[in-house]
């Protein structure tokens, strides 16, 4: 091989581990897919590395940049495979985790179970001490009691401990002293402090975040150490970076100490990828739509930044028909890319309920047995079966022809389970399954757009995942989204996100104050403290000062509300991040006044009303420290030498429910052109109705739409006819 440098991304999912390798100079992409190895995910990780390097004949030493996305943190929690962890809190509040939010996760189920606390009650310890809401000491820390706890932890063979003291967000002194004493007593103890992990108020949520961190610290640290060792043996000496839930990456060393920041590492990569793909085309506002085997996920990117949320529950599961409720999972208050996930994937089951209603999901046939048409023992019809019956999938070219699909079995299953009970024919029922699945996905899209005040007519959709491109065009029609982008190899597009993001660290502090009397110098020093922390971290990660960026934000609310709206502060950007050059102007009162003005606007956008005459409170102050990483270039494809007919495979009967596809304006089967995506060249235009097939996905183009192939090989689908 030449002296080219390579970027390598490894995405460990529940079923498959994907590897993506990009050559920095040529932009060539190689991918590999191997089965995941849940018992020890590092085996699958190393297998994927070996496979992609072998396949591309790239020398391990040529890997300059290595990024990992993983669900190992979440899985260990959900499966209860975390080592013995303890919890230390203020006297009187040791039952914080047991009581949690004091609510039931479902309203009408008398057989409900409350969420099992991650730390059993006998490993929850109380220490006499007390702070007030301003951080003042009401009762000093009883250090002897802490030493007694240390002895108990040793006796119980606890390896990791979470410390969350009441009002610890306002003053970390007691928590830090507790850590010092515990460390004196047992230098090997892993300690997570709430003031370090998530210094925000509302004790149960902070404690939960801190406890999750403490539970997964040993697992993640060991896992990452194992991978680094394996990489060393394989001759890869690039620094290992890990994708976080917020879409940024951090070093393995950082990830090992604050693993709660990476619980949703995998799904985040998909949104980052969509953002990158759309960014290349100059689209900064978009919906990321990722439809796989079990679920569909919708995420929002505005102004080139994925939307993040701090209201997230780990392990929460959808509960149909239970109404709005919470407490189904363990809450965390670290930033997570905001995704709405619905039970509508290729494997989602279609069924007829007791009242004779046709339903789809949220249950899934998964990969095993999978849809009926896979012929692996599945007996219940799925979305994939319906797509097959409607002619949208090619039975002879699934996974590039690796798997043959059984159309007759799919049709028989749909007839028996759905069509006959409803008095429909199988095609009507199959179409119904797709329509209902689309309706579910539209609800998810509505959640991330109109419900949050964003007009879908101003957004671009990027659709990927094996099933995404089959449904996306129809969703865009319904949502009036003007442009749809389907990247090449939609089935592995998500892993690309690992290689197109930056180092990112989030800091926050709760200091509740009225906006009109806020002390700008106090706020400035809060920001500066957090930025200094960020700068130190980035420097340790080897980021040059000119590649550092700091973003300030304030989460505000109307005085008396208890839900905050984040507002970004101006004056950010690379200039603001230069060492020691903190312009005094970055938080002049004028800046604050401007931020408050924008808060009114944001509130109005999100909830329909702003109240400019009402007093505003500043609640949380946040800093995002970013260390920019160079993006690899993506490869370009050849321009059209011959006409698009060269890529045409022929035609087949495909069912369309939107009337304009058919000649007579009614729903029905239409003779539809089939194209081979591998043979489409830049500049080609495919007119709908059409089906575009490739190895890991199939794209459906509706009548009245056309798909244009751009220089990167993306399909750009928009209304219009071929000229």
């Amino acid at each position, binding site marked *: 091989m030449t002296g080219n440098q390579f970027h390598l991304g490894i995405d460990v999912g529940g079923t498959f581990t994907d590897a993506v390798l990009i050559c920095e100079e040529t932009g060539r992409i190689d991918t590999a897919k191997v089965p995941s190895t849940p018992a020890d995910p590092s085996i699958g990780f190393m297998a994927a590395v070996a496979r992609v390097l072998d396949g591309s004949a790239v020398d391990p030493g040529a890997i300059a940049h290595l990024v990992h996305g993983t669900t190992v943190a979440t899985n260990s929690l959900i499966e209860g495979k975390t080592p013995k962890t303890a919890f230390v809190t203020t006297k*009187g*509040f*040791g*039952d*914080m985790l*047991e*009581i949690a*939010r*004091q*609510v*039931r996760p*479902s*309203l*009408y189920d*008398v*057989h*409900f179970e*409350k969420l099992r606390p991650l730390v059993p*009650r006998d490993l929850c310890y109380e220490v006499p001490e007390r702070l*007030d*809401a301003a951080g003042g000491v*009401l009762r000093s820390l009883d250090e002897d009691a802490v030493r007694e706890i240390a002895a108990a932890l040793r006796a119980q063979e606890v390896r990791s401990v979470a410390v969350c003291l*009441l*009002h610890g967000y306002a003053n970390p002194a007691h928590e830090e002293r507790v850590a010092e004493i515990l460390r004196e007593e047992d230098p090997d103890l892993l300690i997570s402090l709430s003031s370090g992990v998530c210094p925000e*108020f*509302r*004790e149960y*949520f902070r404690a939960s975040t801190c406890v999750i961190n403490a539970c997964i610290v040993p697992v993640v640290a060991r896992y990452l150490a194992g991978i680094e060792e394996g990489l060393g043996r394989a001759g890869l000496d690039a620094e290992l970076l890990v994708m976080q839930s917020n879409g940024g990456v951090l070093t393995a060393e950082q990830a090992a100490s604050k693993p709660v920041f990476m619980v949703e590492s995998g799904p985040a990569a998909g949104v980052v990828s969509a953002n990158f793909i759309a960014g290349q085309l100059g689209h900064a506002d978009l919906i990321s739509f990722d439809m796989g085997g079990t679920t569909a996920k919708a995420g929002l990117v505005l102004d080139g930044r994925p939307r993040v949320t701090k209201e997230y529950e780990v392990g929460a599961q959808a509960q*149909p*028909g*239970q*109404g*709005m*409720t919470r407490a189904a999972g363990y809450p965390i208050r670290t930033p997570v890319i905001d995704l709405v996930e619905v039970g509508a994937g290729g494997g989602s089951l279609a069924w007829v*309920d*007791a*009242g*004779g*209603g*046709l339903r789809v999901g949220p249950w899934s046939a998964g990969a095993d047995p999978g849809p009926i048409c896979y012929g692996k023992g599945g007996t219940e019809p799925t979305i994939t079966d319906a797509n097959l019956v409607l002619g949208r999938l090619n039975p002879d070219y699934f996974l590039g022809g690796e798997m043959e699909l059984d159309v007759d079995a799919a049709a028989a299953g749909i007839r028996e389970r759905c069509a006959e009970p*409803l008095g429909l024919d199988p095609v009507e029922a199959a*179409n*119904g399954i797709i*329509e209902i699945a689309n*309706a*579910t996905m539209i*609800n998810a899209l*509505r959640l991330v757009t*109109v419900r949050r005040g964003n007009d879908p007519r101003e957004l671009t959709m990027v659709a990927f995942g094996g099933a995404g491109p089959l449904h996306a065009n129809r969703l865009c029609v319904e949502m009036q989204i003007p442009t749809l982008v389907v990247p090449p190899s939609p089935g592995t597009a998500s892993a690309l996100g690992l290689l197109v993001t930056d180092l990112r660290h989030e800091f926050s502090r709760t200091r*509740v104050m009225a906006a009109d009397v806020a002390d700008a110098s106090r706020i400035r020093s809060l920001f500066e403290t957090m930025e200094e922390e960020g700068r130190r971290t980035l420097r340790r990660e080897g980021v040059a000062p000119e590649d550092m960026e700091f973003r300030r934000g304030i989460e505000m609310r*109307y*005085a*008396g*509300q*208890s*839900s905050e709206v984040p507002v970004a502060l101006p004056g950010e950007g690379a200039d603001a991040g230069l060492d020691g050059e903190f312009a005094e102007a970055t938080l002049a009162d004028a800046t604050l006044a401007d931020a408050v003005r924008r808060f009114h606007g944001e509130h109005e956008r999100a*909830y*329909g*009303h702003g109240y400019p005459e*009402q007093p505003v409170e500043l609640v949380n102050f946040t800093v995002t420290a970013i260390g920019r990483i160079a993006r690899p270039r993506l490869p370009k494809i050849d321009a059209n030498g011959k006409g698009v007919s060269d890529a045409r495979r022929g035609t087949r009967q495909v069912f369309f429910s939107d009337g304009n596809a058919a000649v007579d304006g009614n729903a029905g089967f239409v003779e539809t052109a089939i194209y081979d995506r591998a043979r489409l060249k830049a500049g080609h235009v495919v007119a709908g109705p059409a089906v575009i097939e490739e190895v890991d996905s199939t794209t459906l183009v509706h009548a009245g739409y056309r798909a244009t192939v751009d220089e990167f090989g993306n399909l750009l689908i928009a209304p219009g006819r071929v000229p």
Partner: protein
Amino acid sequence: MPQPESRTVSSVDPVLFEVIRNALVEATEEMSVTLQRTAYSTNIKTRLDYSCAFVDADGRMIAQAFCQPAHLVTIGRLVPRAVAEYEAEHGEGTLGPGDGLLVNDPHRQASHLNDVFLIAPFFHGGELVGYVANCCHHVDVGGGAPASIGAFREIYQEGIILPVVKLFDGGELVGDVLKLMLANVRAKKEVAGDLRAQHAANEIGLRRLSALWERYGAKVLGSYMDRMVEYSERRLRAELAALPRGEFAAEGCLDDDGITGEPVRLKVRIRFDGSTARFDFTGTDPQRAAPMNCNLTQCFTACVYVLKCLVDPDIPLNEGFYRPIEVVAPEGSAVNVRPPAGVVGGWEVAMRLCDIMFRALADPMPERVPAGTKGMICHVGFGGEDPATGEYYCFLETLAGGYGGRHDADGPDAVQTHIQNTQNAPIEETELNYPVRIHEYSLVPDSEGAGRRRGGLALCREYEFVGHEPTFTTLADRARFPAHGLHGGDDGKVASYTLISGGEARNLGSKATVQLVTGDRVRIETAGGGGFGPAHERDPEAVLRDVREGKISRARAREAYGVAIRSGKWAVDLVETRRLRRSPGR
């Protein structure tokens, strides 16, 4: 979606049915999110004590976003009545676009005064199509005690009564009505803010519905709404056909009525006949000149809730679900109150009705109903002059307790029960916003009803007030009559309400309003859940785990469960346990 044979209109499309149904529910969910995010009081934002719904022009509840089961019925029942009353007074057709009706009168079948409803008519193409409405528990509506939950004889003492009045007229706020209302309440900022949030939620609902009507048209939607109502009714009747038939009775008592020490006796006879459910409360005590009465809407709510727990939770809630249900509640009784009696404890009554109804069904349906639960709302309210700001503040919260044991599982600890699912207020946020200090928030060990499946533990919350002299109220229950055990399980531990002043502890009882001095503490221990099945049949390892986790003492393990734990190590003493369990008559 209708069965093929019941199709009367050939154009009924099962797919469109599902799409429209979801879209209507989604519109109310969107209202719900708006209301929660823009609300001012902890009550709504954190405790989620509100609901939003869409009711059609015929007064049928079509879609609702539920946060609290307590609101299962209220909006659907109140809206047609409120509109009819308003139009009877002002003439038919007097409601127009941009109007908003405000109402909270329990004697007009709202719930207690704190629950304030805002109703907005929805017009499409000049035609009235229906109403969006929401209901919020306001932290204060005036009356004799902060948070408006004190025990008084008459409704007039409980707070401001809003008959059906316009708060919005053609899109304009009726300032005089708001002014009158705010003049009567303590927490003016919160009440004003929450009313704004209620208005914003309705506006969002109207916007969403307009888009739907634009798209599908009134004719299609009208026909599908008919189908949705029929569908829910049909599914509920199909479920009723599978329930055991017969008449099942039970009764129980509330501690007292809040004014006299006399317990309030509640009685129910439930009859399932295969297609209807009849709930007959004949024999319940006459109403009291006191707060512990509920109105017919609240009584009906309890019945709908209980039935909903027994059938497929997936059946959509709308008018069709109410149709197979018949409620017989004698007028003037504690479950169908007449003016001018107090009603503020109405939800306390309705909550207990749920426990009693489940008790009635315990024998015919042993695997499907839990033992007695916390069985009360357990309101705690306080207010006074905040020493930091000089402003009047008001705070309300409700405390959880033990759930009842089930045939195959223990009752969960410290959880809200039945019609209530309000979240706790974070202590840090409470201390940041109000002049109160909370010293303890914990489980109460040994408070469970022992059983093969034990009841859940109660919880304890202790408050201290510094630098001012607030008024403190508890409106609760269960201090005398415990959560019942089932099938040989023991009753749960009763609740206690204690004032600690100047080093002396005083029992307040479950309903009290007291004036505190600085440094006073109030300690509340709620009720534990009842046990299910004989305690001596409990798996000794489960008892061991409870002892190890400190939920049950060693002494109690021995006395109540007949389980001996070895001293010095975490293991069951099998020989001693066998001996204890052999001995008769524990």
